[in-house]
């Protein structure tokens, strides 16, 4: 498989490693979603827990948080940073677990990877829906020999850019604490 990828994308220095890393995690998610023993409504929580375990391996939530806040990251003290990462992670998990669990039988095709910098790569995939494809790109970063996702781009909309624009409005005239308070409320309610 790696050989084939090398032949198809001779320019890539990574030779399919990031793509395979993302793909194997996505396959694990799909396995959970397709698992007949988890189909029942009563297994909803078990299913959610399994998905959470996979997402924690798949994503680098600290990197994702830093990049979301960008310049504002330094306005948070270490404790606040830690809490932000936790709250933001559960916000994303809550929000997307439901969406992912509504998955039916769409196919996901991985097409290629594009190097962004020395350590970051964009892995491109498409979700094949009945009335058209949705381009879904994962941006991954290499840390300690592992490629993990720090941004997801759907139809050109970057997840971290989108949240950055929302957090920026809050942080423009309020302290970090008030953003944390907003997140606590959101996560508690969800």
């Amino acid at each position, binding site marked *: 498989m790696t050989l084939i990828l090398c032949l198809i994308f001779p320019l890539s220095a990574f030779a399919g490693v990031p793509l395979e890393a993302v793909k194997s995690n996505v396959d694990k998610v799909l396995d959970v979603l397709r698992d007949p023993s988890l189909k029942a409504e009563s297994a909803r929580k078990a299913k959610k827990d399994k998905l959470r375990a996979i997402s924690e391996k798949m994503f680098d939530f600290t990197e994702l948080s830093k990049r979301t806040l*960008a*310049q504002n990251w330094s306005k948070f003290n270490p404790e606040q940073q830690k809490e932000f990462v936790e709250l933001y992670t559960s916000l994303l998990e809550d*929000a997307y677990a439901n969406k992912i669990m509504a998955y039916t039988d769409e196919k996901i095709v991985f097409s290629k990877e594009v190097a962004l910098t020395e350590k970051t790569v964009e892995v491109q995939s498409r979700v094949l829906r009945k009335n058209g494809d949705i381009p879904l790109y994962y941006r991954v970063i290499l840390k300690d020999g592992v490629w993990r996702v720090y941004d997801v781009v759907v139809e*050109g909309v970057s997840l971290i850019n989108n*949240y950055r624009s929302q*957090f920026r409005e809050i942080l423009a005239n309020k302290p970090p604490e008030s953003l944390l308070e907003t997140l606590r409320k959101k996560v508690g309610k*969800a």
Partner: protein
Amino acid sequence: MKLIYNFILVSVLMLCPASLQADTSSTAPDTVQSHVPETSMATQILSDANSDTNEVAQKQPEFTPPDERTIIVLPQRNEAEAKEAQEVASAENETDTGAEEEGPRIHDPLAPVNKVMYHFNDRLYFWVLKPVTQVYSHIIPEDFRIIFGNVYDNLWAPSRMLNNLLQLRFKAAGNELIRFLVNSVAGMAGVGDVARDALGIKKQEADFGQTLGHYGIGHGFYLVLPVFGPSSLRDGVGLAGDRFMYPLTYVSSSDLTFEESTGIYAHEKVNDTSFKIGDYESFKESAIDPYVSMRDAFVQHRKKKVEENRSNSLSHARKGL
């Protein structure tokens, strides 16, 4: 009775901003756009873009100290600023954000009005469009809904072809022409997407707002349109422009009354939404500030649309057919 019928039609029209695709593919009734003279819009866009750079230029001279007191204060502030800048820089290095470009932004001088429109569209989705669509997809099997979708999509092929042509994407324009001919004839008015299924010729998205963007025209400012959802001055003009390339616009009013064409649009929208129920809900659930989130998603999505086609037109469609 007729009144109720009309009311339902119009209500369904006032539909959701749920899908971003809607702003590229949906139709614009002339009532929304036609009263604004297009030439003045173009100049407004230009002046808007200019004022942007002017503002920046004008702000810089303000740093010259007007009296002695500020001279004393200034060095300290500069030190603090420099320190802050250093911290930011180091934070950026740490997170490797050097390659990360800041997301695109858009002016939103009409925010108060836009927010009202946003809430209006939101209510219409939950009160009208969603319930209607749920009943609709319960009655009409999916296979038929896909066929309807193909027929509506085929009607937009001339617009896609012309816009591809205007963006100098000749191969894409040719593909759309072939698709339109093949699907209209062999696919029986677009019932089947024969061009894609048998010939492997895929749809080449293009709209007039994108064409304007291709030639360097900026958004101007953000605009939330009733029914159509997130848009901008440029893309609003684009919606009207696409309407001129839509075949049903040229069917005489004796053959197709206003009510009928409204009904056709409402059906197109409901049919399209039937594949996307849940998208808007999860969008809202994931957002901290849905209004800001949608505005940002709109501007990011449109930026990609413009850039994607621009790079394709330069490299003459690498992907081939």
